[in-house]
């Protein structure tokens, strides 16, 4: 348990950085998609 307390910053930091980065990337992908989607008719989107 003391090892967890000693290294908590590195261990929780690894998870925090990972989730922060993938969360930001995912958020950016969605926002970018919404912005571009506004300029194009749904008929021209092969996934709709």
């Amino acid at each position: 348990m003391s090892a967890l307390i000693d290294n908590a910053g590195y261990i929780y930091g690894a998870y925090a950085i990972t989730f922060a980065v993938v969360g930001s990337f995912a958020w950016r992908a969605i926002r970018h998609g919404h912005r571009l989607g506004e300029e194009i008719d749904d008929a021209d989107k092969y996934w709709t």
Partner: protein
Amino acid sequence: MTTTSDTLTDAPAPARRRGTGTPATRALGIATIVAMGWLVAFGLGFSPADRDQEEAVRILYVHVPTVWLAYLAFVVAALCSGLYLFTKKHSLGFDRVAGASAEIGVVFMALTLVSGMLWGRITWGVFWQWDARLTTTAFLFVTYVGYLAVRNLGGSHRQRARRSAVIGLLAVVEIPLVHFSVEMWRSLHQEASVANPTGGTKMDGLMLFSLFVGVVAFTLLYVWLLLHRTRGMAMQDLIEDRGLDSALADRRSEGAMS
């Protein structure tokens, strides 16, 4: 007499234009969030400490899945690059999947390096060593950053697709070098605990399950991101094509008037 509110009510509502989401991607996104929750629960909670690495082993439940998914993303990018170059149709769809996959791979590879540095600080006492595995991984990361830079050099979509496909096919050769670097050279980095050269798996059952949860979570995330980014790139290309068509039409009309 028509009031302003009547006019507003009668006017046809502008059609809502969609982004890159569909019901399927929404379901996939929810599954990804749930799987990530399980990863945190198992990685930081249920999984036991390792005999040798103690609590530092918990970092490996994000470190290992991100590097495996980065490899997968780069292999997908190479496959799609090959399909673009060597099929008769030369579909730009393959190029966009390759570009989106490489982009996600770069993000995952960056996370691998950062989580590996944090693990190294606990285990080795330093964030970085110019060790064979670390150096080749950093080189792979820089190579794919270069691939993304080349994609943004400009030119037509066909030119972009052709030059990036060639790089995509060349860069993927580095993956075996990175993966087997711990066996080819003397390395600080540990050898594979799963599917190692002796064919065995040297992990406790609950630890292996935690790693499996991590792999599932990051695989779902990869597929979800790939769908969104590929669709985003398709829209970006369409908008650029329209801009070019419009510029050409303007130029022709100017020529006709003069």
